Each structure stands twice: as C-alpha cells, then as structure tokens.
C-alpha cells in the first residue's frame, strides 16, 4: 500500500486529536480562572445586567454575591 495513504490517515487523526485536546485544556483553564463548578454557561449578559443594576444578586449560577443597594 502506498505510504501516502498511511500519511493521510495519520495527519487527519493527529490533527483532530490535537485540536480536541486543545479544546479540552482551554476549557479547563477557563473554568479554573472562573473558579466555578462545571456549571452550564451563566445567564446571558443582558440578564446579568438587570440583576446587577437592582442589586438583587439572587444567586444566578456563576455570578458571585454583588454588594447590594449600589
């Protein structure tokens, strides 16, 4: 079998593997920076905005406690 075939398969598998690994590691470091559990993404920015303005801070996932009554 021509060596080009193995080369082709090897390149495909290696690249996809490396990319998948990079996704996983980038996600781990992002979570560590956030210091949160593996929770789903937080409320959308607009929603977060409203909570923040009226200082409710009702424990939306990922949003830590904000000083009330700004």
């Amino acid at each position, binding site marked *: *079998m*021509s060596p*080009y*075939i*193995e*080369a*082709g*398969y090897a*390149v*495909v*598998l290696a*690249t*996809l593997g490396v*990319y*998948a690994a990079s*996704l*996983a590691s*980038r*996600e781990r470091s*992002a*979570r560590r*920076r*956030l210091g949160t559990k*593996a929770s*789903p*993404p*937080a409320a*959308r*920015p607009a929603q*977060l905005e409203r909570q*923040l303005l009226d200082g409710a801070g009702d424990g939306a996932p*990922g*949003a*830590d406690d*904000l*000083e009330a009554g*700004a």
Partner: protein
Amino acid sequence: MPSLRSRLVTLVGWLALVGVIATVWLGLFVTPDAVGFPDGLVRLLYVHPPMAWVAFVAYGMAFLSSLLYLWPRTRDMRFDRLAGASAEVGVVFTGLTLVTGSLWGRPTWGVWWTWDPLLTTTALLFVLYLGYLALRRVPGDPEAVAGRSAIAALIAFVDVPVVYFSVSWWRSLHQAPTVDFTGRHLYVHGSMAWTMLLGFVSFTLAYAWMTARRYRLASLAVQQEDEGLAHAIAERRAEGRVLV
C-alpha cells in the same frame, strides 16, 4: 449534575470517536483495493471527501448563524458565538482537506498541487476564513465584534460559489486531468460504500462535538467578561461614592 445538553455533547463525542476508529479500521484494512486506483489509493477516498464536506457544512453553519444574528428579530449573542465556533472548526477541516488532497495528488500525478477547481477553491477558503478568525480576535465591544464578524462571514460564504464557478471555468479551459474526487463514476464495492458513508457520518459527528465544545468555551469567556463587567461597574460606582 451536568445538564442534558452537555451529556448530549459527550454522547456525540463518543459516537464520533467510535465512528472514526471504525472508518480507519475499515478503510485501511478491510475494504479491498479498487480497480483503476494503484496501490490502494482509493482508501484516501474514505477520508478526503468527508473533510471537504465537513468544511463546507462548518462554513454553512457559520453563514446561517451570522444571518440569524444580523436579522434584528433573531439577534442574539449566542448565534455570534456559534458562528465563531463553527468557523474555527471549519478552518481545521479545510486545512486537512488541503493536506489529504495534495497527498492524493502526489502519487497520482507526481506533483503536490494541481490547480484542481475543488482544491483551489478550498485553498482560497482557507485563507479567507483565516482572515475571518483574525477579524474575530480583534478586541472590541462584544456587539461591535459580533456585527463585524457576521458581515465578514456573510461575504465569505457568498464568495464560495463565485470562486468555485470561476475556478472551474478557468480549469476547463486548460483541460488538465482532474479526477473527480467524489469518485462517483467508480464502481463501488458493497463494503466500500458503507465505509465511505461511515466516514461522512463520523467526521460530521466529530465536527458537531468540536463545535459544541468550542461554543461552550466561548460562553465561558463571555461569562468571565461579565464577571469583570460586574466588577467594573461596582468599581465605577465606588469612584462616585468616594467624592460624594
């Protein structure tokens, strides 16, 4: 307990992994050599066309979500993140399309690159979407970045058919030997057809899994920015109180 969505993503991930391994195993060892393709070159057909197909799907998804973002009623930052994620995965697969394409060309015509319409278009797309990704990375107000990127994705995708037709016209003038990559006119033995189909399905699943993970990564980044924003507004307020 991870939500239903992330469990679904994990499931897709495993399915993709199993599918890819099966395709490789079938493609390299089980399926027979095909007539007309010297020393087993047909086996690249299980890998190369799916790469091109997934790249095209990825850019189509980026185009669609950009359109949805631009349409005022359906405007939502999640579409912007989806477009970015899909385009990034698309660039990875486009790169692989080019590599496997030239690996195909080398033994067949003794040259790394033939100006074949499909490959040339893919090369142009590779550069085009690298530009798109570069544009996305330029810092700025989230809405501004999203708006810019959506329009760039719009332009890039509209360019695909234009480039393809102009290149194929151009190539047809030179009548160079171009083997039809999708191997349509190749007599496809039973097991080969299944392997090819498996290749398409499993690489598409791989694309779906990667895009989902990249999307979640983008959401985390946004969440991190929002934390910063909340902090910034609180700080800004403190600046006010100190003077009052």
